[in-house]
């Protein structure tokens, strides 16, 4: 065999060994891990470079992590490694009630929701509504305690088939649909919801706003007496 052919045989073998080692390794491997398995005087950097090129367009790539190397799923295929497990659940009554108040009364604070509901609203209920993608924190009300204001989202409109939030039926329509009794107190009204820009008494949220309300616990405790 001519020297050149022999050289490329050794080269091929080195590449195969690297492939196998990197595949079987539990963690990225560095030069010290790899060199003992290669032929003497092998140019590790060059071999890794060749391997990197070989897998450049494959479903897996040879990636560098610091001084070490590992095979990883190609970034554009990373969706293959994610599974979405969707479980359909009916919304609890508390969540549904809270959602409806947010929808009509937005922008609304937690203590305002509680005022309408007559009971304290758990943070969990709001979390569920936010997880569902129907409710969002809009901003903070410019009142003492600066409570968070809640409103509905595009997802809310989508789910309930509304083109805009003002499509929610008003007083007359609710009565007309027989949902509301016609025997209403004279001062009864249904607010006109707005899910758009911040209102004049709302401040924007800080980028890292966790949405905690300073006074919410206090509010919640006082709630049952409040009505």
């Amino acid at each position: 065999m001519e020297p050149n052919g022999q050289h490329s045989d050794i080269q091929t073998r080195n590449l195969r060994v690297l492939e196998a080692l990197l595949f079987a390794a539990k963690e990225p491997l560095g030069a010290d891990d790899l060199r003992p398995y290669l032929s003497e005087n092998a140019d590790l950097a060059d071999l890794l470079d060749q391997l990197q090129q070989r897998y450049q367009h494959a479903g897996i790539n040879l990636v560098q992590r610091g001084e070490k190397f590992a095979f990883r799923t190609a970034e554009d295929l990373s969706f293959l490694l994610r599974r979405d497990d969707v479980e359909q659940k009916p919304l609890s009554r508390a969540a549904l009630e809270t959602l409806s108040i947010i929808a009509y009364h937005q922008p609304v604070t937690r203590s305002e929701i509680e005022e309408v509901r007559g009971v304290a609203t758990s943070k969990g209920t709001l979390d569920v509504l936010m997880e569902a993608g129907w409710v969002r924190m809009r901003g903070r009300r410019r009142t003492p305690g600066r409570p968070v204001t809640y409103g509905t989202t595009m997802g809310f409109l989508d789910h309930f088939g509304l083109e805009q939030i003002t499509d929610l039926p008003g007083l007359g329509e609710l009565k007309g649909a027989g949902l509301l009794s016609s025997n209403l107190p004279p001062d009864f009204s249904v607010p006109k919801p707005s899910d758009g820009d911040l209102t004049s008494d709302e401040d924007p949220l800080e980028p890292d706003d966790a949405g905690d309300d300073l006074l919410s616990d206090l509010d919640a405790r006082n709630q049952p007496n409040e009505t």
Partner: protein
Amino acid sequence: MYVDVKGYEGPLDLLLDLARKQKVDLAHISVLSLAEQYLGFIQTLKERRIEVAADYLVMAAWLAYLKSRLMVPHDDEDEEPSGEEMAALLQFRLKRLEAMRDAAGQLVNRPRLGRDIHARGDPESILTTKTNQWQATYYDLLRAYVIQREKSFPQDYSVKVRTVWSLSEAEEILERLIGQSAEWVPLQSYLSEYLASTEERQTALASSFTASLEMVRQGQIELRQSAPFSPLMVRRKR
């Protein structure tokens, strides 16, 4: 000869080991001498008062029977298997056990996963994102809103206590007001105190009129009205 019976995986294993010592192919083994060796071995164990498992004794009995069958000529009328058939059976079982042993040896020496061949060392686990898809209908939403708002309606429907004169109350009052007066006096003037109040007016009029009729019937008082809508006059009957 000393052999530890515990080193064997049962009587068949012992037989196979004895057969191998004949150093011939199992197909050409002398079953008769094999049976004799086995029986001799068991005998030795017994003499040394070594406890022998039941399995080995059962095999010994079977081999003793095999030996006896092999030594007498086969009778065609005999329904029992011939000595030759029994010997073939034993040979087959020994061959099969040996074959399985060889196969096991080949299997275990194959390139094995985790030792010679390797799987992905750092599998990229699949991340399962669990999402809840919440369900609610538009109708549910509106109902929920309306129910809550209706709950907040003012609840001051206190039942009005209506002032009503019962007939006996009216009779009592008239009795007291008319007293022994024998003069004709308009009924209304007796009741003026009560008729001033709008709440009592109707019931005072209605009940006292009805009561007065009852008192006339009982002969206690007399009533007189000179013309329609003129004042109703009342006096104690003499």
